[in-house]
């Protein structure tokens, strides 16, 4: 029941390639064609070089956990029945300024393996009409 209640991303003109790729189990990020900066979420101008041309490219899908927390009570739609679950900010190894929000898919009995600055890799969670990139310990 709960999964059907989870918020469904609504792609817009700028984010559609991200969700389309996820549907095909590919992890892509927007990248500045001038200086190569990777964006965690789409930008309209590059904060490093001020160019405004971007491409969608496929990083390795490897990252590290910058930080995380274990949710025990939440108001987030569709997640009430899934506590405890893990939220995390992931830094892709290609880009130290990018922080990607997601869940670490991990059993409660393995929670003691969680830590900051440890490697993770992208996995894909199919949720009916959408697929969302997720992370597991590498």
């Amino acid at each position: 029941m709960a999964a059907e209640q989870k918020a469904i991303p609504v792609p817009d003109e700028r984010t559609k390639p991200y969700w389309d790729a996820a549907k095909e189990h590919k992890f892509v990020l927007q990248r500045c064609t001038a200086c190569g900066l990777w964006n965690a979420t789409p930008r309209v101008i590059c904060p490093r070089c001020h160019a405004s041309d971007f491409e969608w490219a496929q990083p390795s899908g490897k990252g590290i956990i910058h930080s995380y927390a274990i949710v025990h009570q939440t108001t987030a739609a569709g997640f009430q029945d899934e506590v405890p679950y893990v939220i995390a900010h992931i830094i892709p190894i290609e880009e130290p300024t990018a922080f990607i929000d997601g869940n670490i898919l991990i059993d409660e009995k393995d929670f003691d393996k969680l830590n900051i600055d440890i490697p993770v890799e992208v996995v894909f969670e199919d949720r009916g009409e959408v697929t969302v990139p997720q992370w597991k310990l590498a």
Partner: protein
Amino acid sequence: MPFNSANKVAITGVAHSKLGRRQERPIGALAVDACLAAIADAGLTVKDIDGVATFPQTTGPGVGPEPGVSSAPFPWMTEGLGIEELNWWGNGGGNISTAIGYGIDAIATGRCNNVLVWRAMYQPRSGAFGSGTRNTAADAAARPAPRASMGQQFTAPYGFGDAPSGFAPAYMRYMKQYGAKRHHMAAYTVELRKNANKNPNSVFYDQPMSYEDYMNCRMICDPLCLFDCDMPVDGAAAIILQRADLAEAGPQKPAYITALGSGSYDWRTIPPEQWRYASSGNIGRTLWSSTYMKPTDMDGAMFYDGFSPDVYWWVEGMRFCKFGEGFEFIQDGRIAIEGGELPINTFGGQVSEGRLHGIGHWVEGVKQTQGRADDKPGDGARQIKNVNNILVCTGMLGHGNGVILSTEPR
């Protein structure tokens, strides 16, 4: 970077409305209660008020902003207060301290003389604060999945969304990086509850909390437990900023604004813990460069505490200790009213007085500076002894201002 407006503005009148959980009285009426009481406290009438400032125009996320009923925006308040003419008004960005900063500038540059600042907080009638009404599985099951657009499409599908999920990862990183444990935080939360037990306004006035109560508290978003989160309330508070010479003619001792610093943004400050230092670190940098005073000249501090770990970011960012040492700094009675080197949040903070989104800190900072922090003379022991300077800093996530309030011009 000297603060050219130092000593030109003082805070005089301060007041709260009644605070409480889900009050019957509409929030607009509570806001008017607080404003009229603050105006009277300053020895003024509504006609003397020629500037007003607030933040925000609505009262919070997920709350229907019906003016007077669930919010107290500026246009509605001019009617509620019966204001006929203003020379200036401002709407702060991010926190009430930003509105207060604009008000200080407006008086110092001669645009107005007496500025009323209020902040009103309203909770939805059912469900959790910030959630609308979707807080139980049964409630959620009756609804279709929400559609998440714009920035939320990258957070809501992962069960981020409420405030603890924004703050808990930052606190987790702090703990792992520096070795802070939950018992270190008890030094803050237990001390603040003692302070709240001396504050009749506090929602926890009659409820003590022991070290064991804190350590056994249930987790909301680990490492944040329930008692690390501030306590939502309905209520309002107001303060009166005055041109210093006018303040000196009034019934209250002026709390002079003698230093001012501001938070800032940085495109790289995306990691959660860096957002906190974007407020505290930049307020610290700009405030201390605006004055000859030093952290050791402070007799107490009111630091914004939406969540208890905010105190670490404040004591570090404001240069009371090195980065990563905040959890050790607050130990051993250092933040206690009695005998503490730097009493912090003597009113109980938002975690124990109630969530007024910053203005509670300003009210207490002024009262401490004026020497009238004991609401009930006799039961007292909340007033810090021999106060010369009190630091007040509110705002987080890049925005916000901090000031030094002083008993004399400096």
